């Protein structure tokens, strides 16, 4: 029934590699972003000699929020440009959370900017706050590029609304995604009014140059990494579905063939965004982890049928063309700093753990995998895991509910009892959010420092 993908040569070679931990560049990046924000605020400070009255204060608050929004907007787009340094070193999950956070913040700044600026203009024209709507219409009619900016701002609000958690949950993923793509149009539309009506850009030609450079670089990165790189990857590797295998009830593996797949640079623990060119599936791509170390001729993903998309994977026919973007994800062997590793998998979270279990460098007894599932039937890929454990002298443990449905005890004490030197381990973890939280707390209780718990979560 199961096709075992264990025991590849490439995988065995990887197990011999030296441990070379690489630090995440997150802190440095956040500092750079902060420095940029200070620079933007300085620009305002430098160009504003004085503020005469309250009206001026309102207008200048509008300018500050506008400048910051213009700056952050570029970064929010940059975060989704699939730049390898972000995707593979910081981690796609963390960058996605940054994106969501900074996106919300930027949208708030945009709304504040529009409101404050129009209020300020209304006061300046001798009108009151009540005339703000009329003022907005006047400004759109009279100022250059304001019509475009107004449309762009409207799009931003729409994108923001569709991303509010309760709305997003009710929307089909594809709808949300395609609305989200309008961000590019909105950024383009709002860019021009910054240059033509922005006081700081009129006064300071250098600022204008910087702004063009910022947006130019972001555009180049988006075009390069979101469009050209995937095209090149897929032209080179020409992937197709080779087989679909049911591992356990509800969990399927898809084998994907192609040319020179080992040249894609994928590592165990990483994922691709997959788009299957089959009816009803071609318009959206989904992230699935590799469930085996990549081999020159075949890649494998293992997916639990939970959403519309994953349920349809079961019906894929061999030969279906596959469009992949990646590899992404930072939960690789590079994260590890110690000789000993504990892998913790919850349910279908086994997929990246399975690949790491096979390839993480380590001597006999260094690697332990703890696999949590509801029943022993749900332990997908178990045979393979057992074979790998045998082959490299790794420990394999599972925790399932007792026959009366009681959850297994995953506590600090229990973990310590099973693995006395647990505090000397690096821990890689993948599973549902609630499970991950429980395990995280147990691990911390057992003395594992937070920096050695490596976890990837796509929960916002």
């Amino acid at each position, binding site marked *: 029934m199961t096709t075992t993908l264990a025991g590849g040569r490439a995988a065995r070679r990887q197990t011999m590699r030296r441990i070379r931990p690489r630090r995440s560049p997150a802190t440095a990046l956040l500092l750079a972003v902060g420095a940029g924000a200070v620079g933007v605020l300085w620009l305002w400070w430098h160009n504003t000699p004085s*503020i005469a009255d309250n009206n001026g204060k309102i*207008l*200048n608050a509008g300018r500050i929020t506008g400048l910051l929004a213009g700056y952050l907007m570029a970064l929010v787009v940059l975060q989704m440009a699939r730049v390898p340094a972000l995707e593979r070193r910081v981690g796609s999950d963390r960058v996605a959370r940054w994106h969501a956070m900074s996106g919300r913040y930027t949208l708030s*700044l945009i709304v504040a900017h529009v409101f404050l600026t129009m209020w300020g*203009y209304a006061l300046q024209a001798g009108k009151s706050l009540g005339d703000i709507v009329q003022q907005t219409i006047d400004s759109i009619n009279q100022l*250059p590029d304001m019509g475009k900016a107004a449309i762009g701002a409207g799009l931003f609000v729409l994108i923001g609304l569709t991303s509010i958690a309760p709305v997003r949950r009710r929307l089909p993923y594809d709808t949300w995604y395609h609305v989200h793509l309008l961000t590019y149009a909105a950024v383009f539309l709002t860019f021009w009014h910054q240059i033509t009506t*922005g006081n700081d850009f009129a*006064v300071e030609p250098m600022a204008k140059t910087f702004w063009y450079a910022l947006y130019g670089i972001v555009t180049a990165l988006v075009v390069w990494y979101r469009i050209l790189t995937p095209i090149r990857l897929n032209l080179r590797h020409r992937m197709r579905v080779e087989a679909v295998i049911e591992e356990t009830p509800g969990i399927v593996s898809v084998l994907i063939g192609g040319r020179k797949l080992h040249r894609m640079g994928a590592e165990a623990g990483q994922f691709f965004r997959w788009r299957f060119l089959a009816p009803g599936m071609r318009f959206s791509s989904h992230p699935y982890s590799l469930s085996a170390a990549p081999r020159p001729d075949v890649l494998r993903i293992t997916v639990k049928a939970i959403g519309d998309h994953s349920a349809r994977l079961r019906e894929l026919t061999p030969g279906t063309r596959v469009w992949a973007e990646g590899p992404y994800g930072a939960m690789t062997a590079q994260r590890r700093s110690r000789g000993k590793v504990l892998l913790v998998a919850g349910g279908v979270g086994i997929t990246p753990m399975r690949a790491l279990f096979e390839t993480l460098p380590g001597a006999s007894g260094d690697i332990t995998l703890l696999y949590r599932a509801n029943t022993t039937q749900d332990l997908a890929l178990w045979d393979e895991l057992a074979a790998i454990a045998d082959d490299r002298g790794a420990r394999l443990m599972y925790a399932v509910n007792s026959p009366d449905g009681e959850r297994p005890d995953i506590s600090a004490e229990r973990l310590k009892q099973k693995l006395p030197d647990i505090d000397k381990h690096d821990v890689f973890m993948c599973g549902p959010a609630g499970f991950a939280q429980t395990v995280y707390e147990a691990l911390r209780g057992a003395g594992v420092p937070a920096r050695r718990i490596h976890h990837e979560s796509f929960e916002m």
Partner: protein
Amino acid sequence: MRKSHPIRRVVLATAATVSGVVLMLSLKPASDPNAEAAGGTAPQQSAAAQESPQGGAAGAASGTVDGDVVQTQYGKVQVRLTVSNGKITKSDAVQAPKGGTSDQKTALAVPKLNQEAVAQQSAQIDTVSGATYTSTGYKKSLQSAIDKMKASAGSSQGSGSSQGSGTAQGSGSSQGSGGASQAKTVTGKLVQTQYGPVQVRITVSNGKITKADAVQAPKGGTSDQKTALAVPKLNQEAVAAGSANIDSVSGASYTSTGYKQSLQSALDQAGG
């Protein structure tokens, strides 16, 4: 994997942003320390008097014409044209938006608009980016001034001519006593301003300034821009006025003050 507290984060981000913005706003002075000397009053002094020595000789259809006062979102704009032989020789904003960012926009836009008006001889001039309201107001006022100028062109010398030549003669002749017949170049003393040194060189011929130049002027940062805007104006004014009694260029008052001091010293040297 640390517990996230979305509400706490929202509150913190909002509080930090609001207090940061309020702090920055409240740290800004209510009036521009740089612009105090100019105080925006500069354009209100009649430009005509200083300008007339050039125009005076020509005669017909000369003088100044004021355009309508146009109310813009940021304040009033009024254009005054100096006309010689039916041509615009000078355009000036007697009134322009003041206060807050307007000072700066006015300082940037008005000289440009003045130049354009003289170059185009019409109200068909480009809007200055970043100062759209001011530009629009300026163009309206300019148009009305041009209309008046055309209306009065044939019959009278216009309302402005009465202001025309009187006062300017005085300032011109004060220099005249020097009596040197050939042209000479005098360089004024170096005046140190907040933004850098200013030094003026003038060419004097028959006791009159025929050319004024800044050998040194503030450089770097916004100073480049301010210098580029202010110095040509000051040079022009110096020639027109024939004295150091010239208007400060608003938005570049330090440079203007330094310029005037250096100019005065040059005139002293030329006179003595």
